[in-house]
């Protein structure tokens, strides 16, 4: 008979076994989170615990800022007030004309039987803090699921597009800035209507990619959203071209832009309501449904044939 002596000290599984368990678990999490968006519930659950602490950790900084504002005196606010009044007066003329033009445009569009321009509303949110992740450019704002924010909504400030809502938590939501490396915005050049896609570079700049080396792009060109993505409304200013490198050894020009909006600033931003998808006319949808059924039947037949073979 072979008796194992009982262990003197209970130590649980061996360290290497524990390491492989936890490492495998973390790697699985990394893989699932980067490939599929199925861990949002876990994230939201943990965020209920972390966000209050984070907010508390931000409190001393806010306190210092508020104290600074308090002591900076009434003078600065008076200056700012005067400046804003002047800016409003400056803009009043164009604003009034814009309203008139919009009405006129709508009437003309009706005459020409073109679909009217979409209007949208938004809600003003306050930027709470920048996400600490040094590998991406994201900010956290103070409205979330409670305020019916959904992922994908565009975010603008008073000058142009800031980014897009990418994650929504119960009380806050996360916005990926347009300067993030993974963020792309379909744009067109105001001057000639050339369409392209602008990508973030990660260093605060943007790049207009896939434009041929001889494309008609100039320094100072303004890029606005083209609206082809169905997410951003057309015509929102995005960026300005600052530097163009045309190298004949590459087929594409390297075009660098800077965002128009105060992307890296703190303050208030507006989360625009999701754009409504324009439904196809009833006749077209029925045709599409009828047309779509036939090819599927054919492909089914093909599959059967393949199986037989």
């Amino acid at each position, binding site marked *: 008979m072979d008796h194992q002596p009982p262990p003197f000290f209970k130590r649980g599984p061996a360290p290497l076994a*524990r390491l492989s368990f936890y490492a495998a678990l973390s790697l699985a999490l990394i893989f699932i989170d980067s490939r599929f968006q199925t861990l949002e519930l876990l994230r939201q659950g943990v965020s209920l615990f972390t966000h209050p602490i984070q907010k508390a950790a931000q409190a001393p900084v806010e306190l210092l800022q508020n104290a600074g504002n308090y002591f900076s005196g009434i003078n600065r606010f008076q200056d700012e007030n005067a400046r804003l009044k002047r800016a409003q007066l400056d803009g009043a003329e164009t604003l009034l004309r814009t309203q008139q033009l919009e009405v006129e445009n709508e009437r003309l569009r009706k005459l020409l039987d073109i679909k009217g321009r979409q209007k949208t509303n938004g809600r003003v949110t306050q930027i709470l803090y920048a996400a600490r992740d040094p590998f991406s450019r994201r900010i956290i704002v103070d409205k979330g699921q409670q305020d019916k924010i959904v992922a994908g909504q565009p975010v603008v400030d008073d000058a142009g597009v800031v980014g897009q809502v990418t994650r929504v938590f119960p009380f806050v939501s*996360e916005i990926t800035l347009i300067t993030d490396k993974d963020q792309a915005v379909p744009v067109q050049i105001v001057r000639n209507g050339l369409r392209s896609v602008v990508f973030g570079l990660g260093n605060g700049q943007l790049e207009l990619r896939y434009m041929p080396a001889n494309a008609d792009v100039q320094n100072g060109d303004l890029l606005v959203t083209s609206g082809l993505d169905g997410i951003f409304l057309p015509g929102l200013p995005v960026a300005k071209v600052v530097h163009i490198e045309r190298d004949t050894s590459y087929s594409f020009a390297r075009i660098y832009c800077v965002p128009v909006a105060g992307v890296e600033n703190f303050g208030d931003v507006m989360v625009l309501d999701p754009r409504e998808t324009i439904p196809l006319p009833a006749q077209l949808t029925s045709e599409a449904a009828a047309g779509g059924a036939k090819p599927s039947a054919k492909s089914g037949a093909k599959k059967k044939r393949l199986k037989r073979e």
Partner: protein
Amino acid sequence: MQPTYSSSRILQPVRPWFVLISLATALVFNFFPTTAWPWMPDWVALLIIFWSIREPRHVGMGTGFILGLTMDVADSSLLGQHALAYVLASYAATSLSRRILWFPLGQQALHILPLLLMVQLVQFAVRVMPGADSPGLSYFVGPFFGALLWLPLTFALLLPQYQPVDRDANRPI
């Protein structure tokens, strides 16, 4: 247990709630808006390594994993990125603890530096390999300050365990 194995002072046993509070404090320290200062060390990594070396039976890979997940959600980074780094650091610290504690504090700090660098390097690899933006070399400055902090940190965290020196001629140690 002694402050280092070559020391003749005997420490009182650690109180578990003190470990918990110190880890929670480190979490809050990490949540401070210090993104503008890249030299700020990763406090949670530092504390996990510290307690994995001092108290491998209280703090280990499980603690590292949970704190790592918390950091991932708070940082809005890839889920599991911090967890993997902390688990590896905790494992290395636990297995090195018998060796590290023989050295004086300055040389201990030299042992901590590669562990802290590994924490950053693992996260760097996990994020940059699939194509995220590289944050630059300043990302690796934090560990050096973390290693410098090892000396004051050891004193501060062992303070509750010190007991007054009472000389007793009859006591063996």
